[in-house]
């Protein structure tokens, strides 16, 4: 798998889909591709947010730590972006991510990511658009919930 293939994967991520190919290539180039063994943790709840991951191949579970132990709340598949909220808001990890099979992911460093956003407004806009969309969805869900 080469840089080109990673760029293709990044393009599948909604947050990155409108970004210029050359920029995506830069994002991929400045990221690291890492492999996780089955059950290896990407990061744990409460860790400092130092990076985001795009899953290139494989699967991962999202776990929440509760008083009764860890419970699985979601499952991530290929092309999923995870950990981006933490690096944008500079808050600790809100959940634990564990590979549920041998998984390859692209690790985007927080500092590099923020520098790219600062440098290229088009990227920043794409990220904002995605965040706004999520907010809208959340609002819609809230309305639906309070309506029901």
């Amino acid at each position, binding site marked *: 798998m*080469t840089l080109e293939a990673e760029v293709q994967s990044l393009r599948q991520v909604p947050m990155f889909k409108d970004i210029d190919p050359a920029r995506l290539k830069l994002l991929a180039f400045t990221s690291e591709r*890492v492999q996780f063994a089955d059950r290896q943790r990407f990061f744990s709840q409460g860790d400092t947010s130092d990076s985001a991951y795009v899953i290139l191949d494989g699967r991962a579970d999202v776990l929440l730590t509760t008083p009764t132990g860890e419970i699985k709340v979601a499952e991530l598949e290929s092309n999923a972006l995870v950990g981006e909220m933490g690096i944008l808001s500079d808050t600790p990890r809100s959940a634990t991510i564990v590979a549920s099979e041998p998984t390859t992911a692209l690790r985007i460093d927080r500092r590099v990511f923020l520098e790219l956003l600062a440098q290229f407004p088009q990227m920043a806009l794409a990220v904002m658009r995605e965040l706004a969309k999520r907010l809208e969805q959340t609002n819609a869900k809230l309305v639906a919930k309070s309506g029901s």
Partner: protein
Amino acid sequence: MEKSLFRYIWTHSKRDQILVCGVVLVSQPFYFASLDLPRQIVNQAIQGEAFRDGQATAPFLPFTLSLPGWLGGSSWHIFEGFQVGRIGLLLGLSCLFLFFVIVNGAFKYWINVAKGVLGERMLRRLRFDLFTMVLRFTPEALRTVKSSETATIIKDEVEPVGGFIGDAFITPVFLGMQALTALFFIMVQHIWLGLMALAVVAIQFTIIPRMRRELLRLGRLRQISSREFAGRIGEVLDGIEAVHVHNAYGWERAEIGHRLYQLFDLRLQIYNRKFIVKFVNNFLSQLTPFFFYSIGGYLAIRGTLDIGQLVAVIAAYRELPPPLKELIDWDQQRLDVQVKYDQVAQHFSEERLAPILLGKDEAVDEEPLGGPLVAEDLRVADPHGGMVLDGASFEIPLPAEVALISGGSAAASITAQIIARRMLSFGGRVRLGERDIAQIPLATAGRRLAYAGIDPILFPGSIRDNLIYGLRHSPVGKFKEDEREALRRIKEAQRTGNPIDNISDQWIDYELVGAKDEEDLDHILIDLMKKVGMGTEIYLFGLAGRIDPERDPDFAARLVEGRQRLRETFQAEGMGDLVEPFDPRQFNDQSTIAENILFGVPTSDAFRGRNLAENPSFRKAIDEAGLFDDLVHMGIQIAETMTEIFEGLPPGHSLFEQFSFIGAEELPEFEAILRRRRGSDDSLTGEDRTRLLSLPLAYIEARHRLGLIDSHLKVQVVQARGLVRTEFETAEAGVEFYDPAKVCSAAPVRDNLLFGRVSYRVANAQARVAEAIAAIVKELGLLEEIERVGLDRQVGTAGRLLTAQERASVNLVRCLVKRPDILVIDGALAPFDETRAQQMISLLIELGRGRSLFMVLPNERQASGFDILMRFGDGKITTETKALQAPGPSEPNAAQAEEIAGEVA
């Protein structure tokens, strides 16, 4: 320092000066003879005067001693000479002339060498004296003395003084004799022509020095300006951070530009003046021959002067201007260096210096420093005249742990400095036991007292060098050196007032710290470093350090063993994919192409980084391996990708530095290369290819993932290794090759243990590998050896390669390792946060049981472990003895404390 340069020179070198002068005197008759011979050759042999009366032969080499006319004019024939014919006389006299030329040359050679040696010895003495004075600068003087100015004085400004010293007495004697001889000779030939020459010389000697006075003034200005210039550069460099932070480039550049203009202007004025003087001087020199030719020629035509005489006068006069000119130059130089010397002496004036340092040969007191510390009526004023301490007194029984609670005032720190003898100008008295603390001999104070201030002062060198700095008071063991060489060294040192100690001697006093040898001392150092919380750092420094397998073959063998064990562990625990080992027959995906081709570590810059692409041996090897075109092609692909993805980033952006193969400033150049290449690969120049070749050398497939390496290329690269090895075995050794069974001394310890590269592909691989290494290191007992390598870590200028906390730790351990009777800590813990500082304080108290500790603390929060609290207010000091931990060096208590300390050391 002597006020007059000449007195300084005379005091220290009169024997040599007199000797050389004597030789100069002895050489003069030979010189005179060589002047007289041309006349004899022309008159006696060529014109045949010796054969005037039809004689067939004439005496050659007769030796007659005759008295001048006014003494009776009698003469004795000592040797009648050989009877020779006309041709025989001509050849005989010519050969004699040649003989005198050689003798004169030999004299000149000896005199020049002797002068040079004399000057160099005096320069050594002068520089050493100045350095000794540097050590004596008082703390007050140091506020105004600039280090870079002082350095430039000792190095540059005294250089011409030294060059002059060899000439100081000899040149005027030598040249004066020559000039007088020539003048005398002219006089003997013809009194009037002689007087004429003398008159012109007199004019020269009055006018020229007058004209040069202005030159001296300019020279002095230039000396001061150059010194300030050097000082200013030093200042800017020391304060470079402020220059960067406040964007003061413009100002600093203009400031330096202005200084350079001033220097230029001064030099210009000096040139103008100097060459005018030269012009006048040359003119006056040529005036004499003018008279000789016109008047002497006239007299010759009239027949009152024979031609042989005139030729001899003119030949003699040719000898006159050079010594005269040099004599005038000497006089100029004399004034010049006197001015320089005065300036230097001013910099080292007595009022800036502390009393002469002794203490080298003193014996250290056997008794520990103890007894009550009593201060009476301490008075210290701040620079504005306010009283910081005003009649303060205290009495403390030692040993004790004393906290000096500053409460924000400077008084605590000043008191600490007084106790540590760092501050000498204070009113009142401080006694330690029977003695005034100022009376404690230097050697004893250096051994038994330690002070750690807020600025840790580290010297360039290894951490170990810095830690043992306080253990090198005087040589305790002799280094075996060649006896003759040693004799010569010591003799030279004695002749120049330098110390005769050899720095290769054993200076480190192991006994002082209770160590048996070097290894034992390292134990102690490492142990202390661990205690102050530097254990991890020292271990990591050790892993990053290098070892010399020849010096320590045992450790090298164990490293190789560790390498195998590590590999086994990785295999056994399913961590095999974490590290890709170096294998002579396998391409390593986690290494750069350069490393893969070299299969070793460069030891010289010609083989590092991009230089490799230009290295002819390397080029030859990859050419033979058929790799060149492939690599250039890879370079093109890398350049294309880089120019594409880094386009639009501003130059200097941190992403460039971190990720790009191509620097921002090179981007346009590579774009041009790519454009040129668009036609065909043939349109690339040789230089283009070299630049393109440099790109893939740093390429790591697993990290950069451009998909540029296929299995065919891998095979080629592995094949190229053999070619590189044969090529480099013949070339200058610039690469140390990897060998699975050997330690590579050019690679860090860590790489030697791993003997491979950590995978970029596996998540969290670095941390897991580090853990595995730590486990193996512990298991095989390599830890201590590695920590010893860690002590070799270079600290850089002023310790800048270390962090502030590391510097402070080194500073503390340097004090602790001496096991001082009294340890004064004044702000040395500032870089540590409060928790860590509190740990350090407990540690210091613990380590110092049975000895005394004085520590300046900002407030009482950290003072719980101390016996005595000192508080400062209104210039007074109040002491409070903690009731629970009653002071008093009761016998059993002290003995017990010694024991603890012994364990620590």
